[in-house]
């Protein structure tokens, strides 16, 4: 007879909290939570006490008081009479703007450098290796300072454009002025502007909305044309000639709209101390942009290189053996697989760019840290509130970027079944 030992039904003993694996994790968690809460209480308590001693309160009311300082680059209306809250918003938009354009430029640069580094051309490969290594191994801050110094020293001052025989000239038929205060581009203007819509916080140009709407409609129309062409091709085997229709659909509406709005370019002109008119991309913006893109581009180049090298040669050969054209091979076989390797580290590079925009402090670009975490903090003396708010905003931006990119990552990921 086999003895079946029934485990004795223990009554609960205190020692089981430690020795019984069923309860132990609970015990650990409770103790951990207790310690954590105690620590948090201690910190908050200290903070309250310290604030009390300093005679300060914790309040965000300063966000609604007059800022009193000016910001040079602003995407929404702002002047020194605006509130600190609005200054923060201006800074936030500047941060997002520099982060976005740097991500785009870094990606383009990184992909090119990554591909060229694998090139069989010895000179090109070595040059790219030098680029990648020197930017990866020297702090970003030094690059920002160096590029800022180069731009300040190498480009001519607006003064050099003056006089009958100026020592500096504008580029591209007198349309673009490169100075050491930044680059002045022609700006789009409309004779018959539709005006702006006031959204409470900022104004939206109706012209821009109209242009976007027309472009979207054109692209939708173009897609439709392609689809109908495909249907015909599937049915008859002959693809109707569509190129002139496509061109018409894509180009004509936008041209008509621009003519109707009275589109023309406003050129920068030297008036008084500075160039007037046109779009002014300040030196601080350009230096930060170039430094961030080139620096991060070096990292992206390595990611791209690793991604391409991760695809075994057999994949390409198999695709070619199946009769796919080289373009199709890249699009349908190599790229989807390489992207799977490339995208996750790419996401963290984008996050790095966003966080590194805070180095704007080195060149005086008016980003979130310079407005909320810089001048506002300094003028109001509200370190605690301003720093917490600023960290919260950066955290929110990071989380949004990583969730959007992770969503994209999931959509391109090869489904493993």
């Amino acid at each position, binding site marked *: 007879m086999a003895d079946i030992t029934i485990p004795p039904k223990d009554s609960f003993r205190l020692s089981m909290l*430690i*020795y019984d694996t069923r309860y*132990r*994790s609970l015990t*650990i*968690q409770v103790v*951990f*939570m207790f310690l*954590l809460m105690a620590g948090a209480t201690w*910190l908050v308590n*200290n*903070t309250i*006490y*310290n*604030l009390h*001693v300093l005679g300060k309160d914790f309040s965000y009311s300063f966000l609604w008081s007059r800022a009193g300082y000016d910001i040079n680059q602003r995407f929404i209306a702002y002047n020194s009479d605006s509130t600190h809250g609005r200054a923060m918003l201006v800074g936030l938009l500047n941060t997002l703007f520099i982060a976005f354009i740097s991500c785009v430029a870094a990606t383009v640069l990184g992909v090119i450098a990554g591909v*060229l580094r694998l*090139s*069989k*051309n*010895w*000179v*090109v490969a070595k*040059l790219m290796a030098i680029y990648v*290594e*020197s930017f*990866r*191994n*020297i*702090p*970003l*801050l*030094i690059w920002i*300072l*160096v590029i800022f*110094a180069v731009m300040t020293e190498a480009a001519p001052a607006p003064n050099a454009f003056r006089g009958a025989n100026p020592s500096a000239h504008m580029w591209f038929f007198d349309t673009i002025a490169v100075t050491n205060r930044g680059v002045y581009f022609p700006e789009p203007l409309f004779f018959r502007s539709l005006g702006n819509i006031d959204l409470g916080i900022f104004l939206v140009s109706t012209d821009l909305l109209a242009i976007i709407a027309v472009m979207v409609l054109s692209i939708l129309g173009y897609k439709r044309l392609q689809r109908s062409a495909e249907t015909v091709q599937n049915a008859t085997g002959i693809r109707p000639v569509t190129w002139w229709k496509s061109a018409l659909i894509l180009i004509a509406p936008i041209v008509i709209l621009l003519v109707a709005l009275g589109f023309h370019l406003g050129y920068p002109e030297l008036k008084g101390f500075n160039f007037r008119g046109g779009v002014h991309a300040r030196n601080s913006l350009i230096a930060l942009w170039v430094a961030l893109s080139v620096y991060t581009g070096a990292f992206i180049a390595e990611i791209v290189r690793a991604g391409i090298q991760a695809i075994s040669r057999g994949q390409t050969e198999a695709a070619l053996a199946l009769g796919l054209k080289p373009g199709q091979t890249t699009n349908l076989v190599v790229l989807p697989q390489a992207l799977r390797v490339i995208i996750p580290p790419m996401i963290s590079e984008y*996050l790095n760019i966003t*966080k*590194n*925009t*805070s*180095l704007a*402090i080195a060149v005086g670009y008016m980003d979130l*840290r310079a407005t909320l*975490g810089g001048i506002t903090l300094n003028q109001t003396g509200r*370190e*605690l509130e301003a*720093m917490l708010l*600023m*960290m919260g905003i*950066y*955290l929110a931006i*990071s*989380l949004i970027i990583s969730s959007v990119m992770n969503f994209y990552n999931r959509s391109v990921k090869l489904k493993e079944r």
Partner: protein
Amino acid sequence: MTDQPLQYVRTEMLEAKAPPSFQIGPLRWARENLFSGWLNSLLTLVSLYVILTLLAGVAPWFGHTVWNAGSLSECRKIIHSDFGPNADGACFAVIHERWNQLLYGFYPVEGYWRANLALVGMLLAIAPILFSQVPRKLLWLSALYPFLGFWLIWGGSLWFPISALLGFVVGGIAFRLMVEKSTVLAAAAGFVVAWLWWFFAAGPVDEGLSAVLPIALESVQSRDVGGFLLSIIIGISGITLSLPLGVLLALGRQSNMFFIRTVSVGFIEFIRGVPLITLLFTASLLLNYFLPPGTNFDLILRVVIMVTLFAAAYMAEVIRGGLAALPRGQYEAADALGLDYWMAQRLIIMPQALKISIPGIVNTFIGLFKDTTLVVFIGLLDPIGFINAIRATSDWNGIYWELYIFVGALFFVFCYGMSKYSMYLERKLQTDHH
């Protein structure tokens, strides 16, 4: 048939002809590597043009280098008199005059040997961790090094670091005694005993021993530590301190316990979501709000704490990658052997996971080391801080390329060395697996 030899058959082989000139030597190499197609040729030409332009711009500047001068104006005068009135030249005299500040900050000159010795000691201490060929005995040096390095750099009584070290020893003994009963309890006991030691026993022991046997180096203020030395101190202590914290966070993130996992994830994501510069500003502006009133400790220490927390979050992610790369079988085998959680981690999982993560850890370190330059924004005089300070003096006002080049080159040498090491390691680990 006669044996008459056939007239038209050669008796000896022909000499092999030299291959066509474009198929040998540099020409062939150039043809295959540089000019294999029109696109390739174009790229080559463009690259060569870029390189030549850069060289043409930079070479004369480097050629006209002045090493001995007291100020920028004196330097320019020398360049103009030596190389012609319109010559432009590098004035590395500023490095010659200020190199000690860029490297050591205001560290007392007679104490440079201490900083140098600490650096050599650090290399020795790191060697057994980085290279498996080095004798294992050196690992003891690695364990003792933090205390030794602290004493060498900051000076003061030798017994202070030793009494602090004894706290770990006492804690370790308590852990050993209790570990038979329960690992968790033992860990708690070791922790409590060590803290008790630091709070109550360490001070008297330090004083007592100092009174009996006064061995001390001249103590150096944290404020005097600056320049590249400061970067190294912040970088190294940040990475060493963050390693244990990172391991705990990585384990916490993979834990089954809900609270611990949530807190770990929250911490990691928070730190990774904000720029380092805001954490540094927190260290310099806010930390005194969070601590008891009147508390005030060294800014460098505050920065090290913040940098440690920052690095720990990144380290946790690197180690999590290492943990994820381990085959599931390793965990199951450990369970099958009846090991408990900590034994399994200590004996099976962590040694393998850490080994896989070393390249990632080195990369994190390179990143951290470069990020130490940000301390300039809270008023610490790291190399970039000194660049500003030197440029603020009337002698060297208006100079910057030379300083940037010097500091950039220092960082490059350091980081490039480490990244080469990480590549070597990756190759080594790859062959291990195949």
